[in-house]
């Protein structure tokens, strides 16, 4: 909502400066979004008298002018054809920034003659495209006066962000009332004296609604004018309308716009000569209802919409938009004004359906001052007669003027208990009175508050308390730190929240970069990862590649990999801990820990041969994340075959018993290709909810038993069928003696001719830690034999010769 300072002062008697007014607006919740002071930009342009204009001695098209600025006489070289002795123009001295050209004026010499300023055209001042000559002001214009003031451009425009609850502040008067309450001046009275009519209106009104839909248009007031002269509206009105962003059309139309902006009272004017029949009415839309709006667009009505009609059919949408067919123009002599009440919800819904935002809709959907409608009609009538002459009929009225006022009981003590500040009751009552409320003391701690008819935002006691606090000033409320509940703050994270943080820091510490990506992916990408269900597809996505809630964190990371690769970054290790969606219910959301790697595992460097990332990198990431969140990594089993978006031979599942905790591996080349990423890409994913939380136990560690005896290391190489899982061998070794064998490492895998077709060799080193005494060679040999036997029994492997 834009207002100008002058406009505001038509309603507010104040000596406050622009700055004081803006500060006050912010203080009372009418946020100043911008101030445009056009006068300030034109401050050094003044009215000057051309004492003498003579031909330039060295240039045909130039003139040398002596200009009286009111302070001194200045010589100016001017190229305008209309520069002449005795005229009054607009002068800018050297040093002025010329807004139309963007140039800073300098004293100069033009063809040998000194020039100390400029006589300006409208284009040079940024006012219009007019550049045929310099501005030629009327003879009686005072020399030395500010041009901005003369031209009415010194009226600063204030843009206010009116919150949706404050329909009353969609008019200058409402803003003035708030400012007056805040102590910035006095609200001037509004003249609503009835204008007597002199004849019966030839147009009658009709409201055609059944009882159920009566609220669609509950009141319609009309007045008929004749003998009008619909020229342009006066300059003062045009200037203000332009300043707030409206285009002046004609006096009649401008009056309705003025009413809307000035007192928040939308109105519509019909050219009565264009009305068919003798009735204008309102009803709900019917099949076939269509019209051309004043904005030049065609519209159709549906049965939910409020339609204005005459004998010819539909004329416009009530509360939203008038029609071209009955619009006033310069030939209009007979007019009919509409002041009506339209249902806020229906008006809003209609506007939404049509994507139509108009000044009338903004006000009706927030609620206008309903009982004020007849007064608004008087204000409009008076203005039209003033501007266009003619005479007016007696009012015609259909429907009822609402008289009921909202009352509520409010406890004055709530000012302090809710607001944290003690405000004397008299002061609180004065604030409410200034805002138009009536607060009567009806009990020890009770006001009976009558809410003014223009306020539709008073739903509960707290709303009234807010008015008192708001006008008194939030700044006055002392800041109080929250009382501490405990001397030492207690930990606040849930086990799940802690696990998210552990996993994040662990993966970052492994050299991975954490990404945060959108929760939605394209349907194609979602389908590659088992998602894309209709129930999880957005009805109104922002774009087609962000339309499905993701089933996994991997598609987001793959898309990120693709983008990074396209930028020339091939080595990447990304992870994300974020939500994935298995359904739409609150329990269908999972927290996914996902990571990918691509390119060379350690980049290229001189110490080692380059190695592309492989499934084991992803396995290590998965195990590190599982370890960080407290899963018993040493007890995990790995099985082959992760979901189908992985390489069928190079992927696996990490399990705890029957429970799958993580998937990992190389991404399926078809998936990688479909996502425009360069493989091989490896990744893993863990759904946090799948990993059981460790049972609550003591933070104390089990006692550490340190053996005083030297550990013994033994190496074994087993020859096995090539398809025997290494994990089976390791488990067999471990099972040979769970007490004495404390460490097992698999340090070589060999497959080759020397072993024969279908065979492989695994080399394992074990650490034997004696506990009770040093072990004899025989005992160690016996243990080694047990290891060999266990491997043979469980895997068929034999000691390599």
């Amino acid at each position, binding site marked *: 909502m834009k207002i100008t300072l002058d406009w505001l002062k038509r309603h507010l008697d104040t000596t406050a400066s622009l700055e004081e007014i803006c500060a006050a607006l912010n203080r009372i919740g009418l946020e100043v979004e911008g101030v445009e002071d056009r006068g300030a930009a034109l401050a050094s342009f003044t009215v000057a008298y051309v004492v003498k204009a003579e031909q330039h001695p060295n240039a045909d098209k130039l003139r040398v002018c002596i200009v009286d600025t009111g302070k001194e006489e200045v010589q100016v070289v001017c190229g305008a054809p209309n520069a002449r002795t005795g005229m009054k123009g607009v002068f800018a001295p050297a040093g002025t920034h010329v807004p139309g050209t963007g140039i800073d004026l300098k004293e100069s010499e033009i063809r040998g003659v000194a020039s100390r300023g400029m006589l300006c055209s409208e284009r040079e001042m940024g006012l219009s495209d007019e550049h045929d000559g310099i501005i030629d002001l009327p003879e009686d214009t005072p020399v030395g006066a500010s041009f901005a003031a003369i031209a009415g451009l010194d009226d600063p425009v204030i843009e206010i962000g009116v919150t949706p609850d404050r329909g009353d502040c969609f008019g200058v008067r409402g803003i003035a009332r708030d400012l007056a309450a805040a102590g910035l001046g006095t609200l001037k009275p509004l003249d609503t004296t009835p204008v007597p009519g002199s004849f019966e209106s030839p147009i009658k009104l009709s409201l055609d609604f059944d009882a159920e839909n009566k609220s669609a248009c509950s009141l319609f007031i009309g007045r008929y004018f004749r003998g009008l002269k619909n020229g342009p509206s006066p300059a003062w009105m045009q200037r203000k309308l332009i300043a707030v962003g409206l285009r002046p059309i004609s006096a009649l139309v401008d009056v309705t716009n003025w009413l809307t902006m000035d007192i928040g009272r939308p109105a519509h004017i019909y050219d009565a000569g264009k009305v068919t029949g003798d009735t204008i009415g309102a009803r709900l839309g019917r099949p076939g209802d269509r019209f051309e709006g004043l904005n030049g667009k065609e519209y159709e009505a549906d049965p939910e919409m409020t339609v204005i009609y005459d004998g010819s059919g539909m004329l416009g949408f009530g509360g939203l938009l008038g029609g071209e067919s009955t619009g006033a123009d310069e030939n209009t002599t007979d007019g009919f004004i509409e002041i009506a009440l339209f249902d806020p919800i229906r008006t809003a819904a209609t506007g939404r359906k049509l994507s139509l935002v108009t000044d009338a809709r903004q006000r009706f959907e927030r609620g206008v001052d309903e009982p004020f409608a007849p007064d608004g009609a008087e204000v409009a009538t008076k203005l039209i007669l003033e501007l266009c002459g003619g005479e007016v009929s007696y009012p015609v009225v259909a429907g009822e003027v609402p008289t009921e006022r909202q009352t509520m009981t409010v406890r004055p003590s709530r000012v302090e208990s809710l607001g944290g500040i003690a405000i004397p009751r008299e002061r609180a009552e004065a604030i409410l009175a200034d805002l138009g409320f009536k607060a009567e003391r009806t009990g020890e701690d009770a006001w009976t508050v009558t809410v003014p008819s223009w306020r539709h935002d008073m739903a509960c006691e707290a709303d009234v308390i*807010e008015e008192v606090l708001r006008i008194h000033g939030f700044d006055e409320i002392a800041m109080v*730190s929250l009382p501490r509940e405990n001397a030492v703050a207690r930990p606040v994270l849930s086990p799940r929240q802690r696990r998210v943080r552990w996993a994040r820091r662990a993966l970052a510490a492994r050299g991975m970069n954490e990404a945060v990506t959108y929760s939605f992916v394209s349907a194609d990408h979602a389908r590659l990862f088992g998602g894309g269900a209709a129930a999880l597809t957005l009805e109104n996505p922002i774009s087609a590649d962000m339309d499905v809630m993701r089933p996994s964190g991997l598609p987001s990371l793959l898309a990120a990999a693709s983008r990074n690769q396209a930028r020339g970054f091939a080595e990447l290790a990304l992870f994300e801990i974020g939500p994935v969606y298995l359904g739409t219910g609150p329990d269908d959301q999972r927290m996914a820990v996902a990571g990918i790697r691509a390119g060379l595992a350690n980049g290229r460097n001189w110490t080692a041969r380059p190695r592309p990332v492989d499934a084991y990198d992803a396995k290590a990431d998965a195990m590190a994340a599982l370890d960080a969140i407290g899963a018993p990594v040493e007890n995990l089993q790995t099985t082959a075959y992760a979901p189908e978006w992985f390489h069928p031979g190079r992927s696996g599942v990490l399990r705890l018993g029957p429970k799958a905790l993580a998937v990992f591996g190389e991404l399926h080349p078809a998936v990688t290709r479909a996502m425009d990423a360069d493989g091989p890409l490896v990744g893993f994913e863990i759904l946090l909810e799948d990993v059981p939380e460790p049972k609550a136990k003591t933070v104390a560690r089990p006692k550490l038993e340190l053996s005083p005896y030297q550990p013994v290391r033994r190496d074994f190489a087993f020859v096995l069928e090539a398809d025997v899982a290494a994990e089976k061998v390791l488990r067999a070794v471990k099972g040979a003696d769970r007490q004495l064998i404390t460490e097992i490492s698999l340090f070589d895998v060999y497959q080759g001719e020397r072993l024969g077709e279908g065979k492989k060799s695994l080399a394992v080193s074990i650490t034997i830690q004696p506990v009770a005494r040093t072990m004899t060679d025989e005992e160690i040999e016996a243990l080694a034999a047990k290891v060999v036997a266990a491997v043979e029994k469980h895997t068929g492997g034999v000691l390599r010769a």
Partner: protein
Amino acid sequence: MQNQIDSIKDDVLARIAAAGDPRALDEVRVEALGKKGAITGLMKQLGGLSPEERRETGAALNLLKDEVAAAIDARKALLERAALDARLAAERIDVTLPPRPEAAGSVHPVSQVTDEVIAIFCEMGFAVAEGPDIEDDWYNFGALNIPEEHPARQDHDTFYLPAEEGERRPVLRTHTSPVQIRHMQASTPPLRIIAPGRTYRSDSDVTHTPMFHQVEGLVIDETTHLGHLKGCLRDFVEAFFQVDNVPMRFRPSYFPFTAPSMEVDIGCSFKGGELKIGEGDDWLEILGSGMVHPNVLRAGGIDPDRYQGFAFGMGIDRIAMLKYGIPDLRAFFDADLRWLRHYGFRALDLPTLYGGLAR
């Protein structure tokens, strides 16, 4: 005899000093002290001397033997040292070669700033609550006093999912406020929670992304008032931006779920294109807040005649941008490695109040 001793001594010591390597030195040793060595030879002659001479000469010979042995040891140590020096000199490497590369990981600013926010509010006794991203219409709007035709609902640019038969369309939560309702329903006052998380609005331009992060705050008890809200936010802002006495402006505003409502600005300056929090004449809006609306308390199953309190909602991405000078919101969610490395945080830089939230 003494003459012989003297001459052997001079000769042997000279040869020890001249020995250029351990082998030459060993030769000298054998020739002097070996079975057939010169000194050994003299020792053998001792038997032919008178007891008096034997004692005298024996002592001189023993002295010589010790002296020669010491000289050999000294020379040996010298030679070994020289040999080691020579070997080490040959083992020289180019220490300017770069070490084996190790990737430095990073934590995303959203995660880091969320942890900072939690650290501060934990100190004030707030727990951390969570709720689903896909919300029921009622939790996102109705329970928060935003009825169907409310103009505020239109401002939310809501993402919708298809409705199930007879149900209302699920929405992507447009704010973290539904967590207020879920938490109130599940608990009894007094309550102090924050709820950080993802939020969604179908809006995309330089300053808006269809997904962003908010943190909700909620305090409900019997006495908390607007002054506490102001104090709590002041305490947060000063801790978070690590600036004392940040100028703050509390502007009345409107939110359907609070009454009274206010927006909060912090003082800043943009001198030379650089944003400084806590000084200057400009204001930056950082959050919306207010006293929880009685209808919202009712929706959460809490008696508004007995309990009251405040709520606020703040953009995590936004305060991250302000604090760390990150210019573009859209880049937050693009996963550009260069951006992640530049604006990300070290894995072990866990924000704490005792160590400071940021380096």
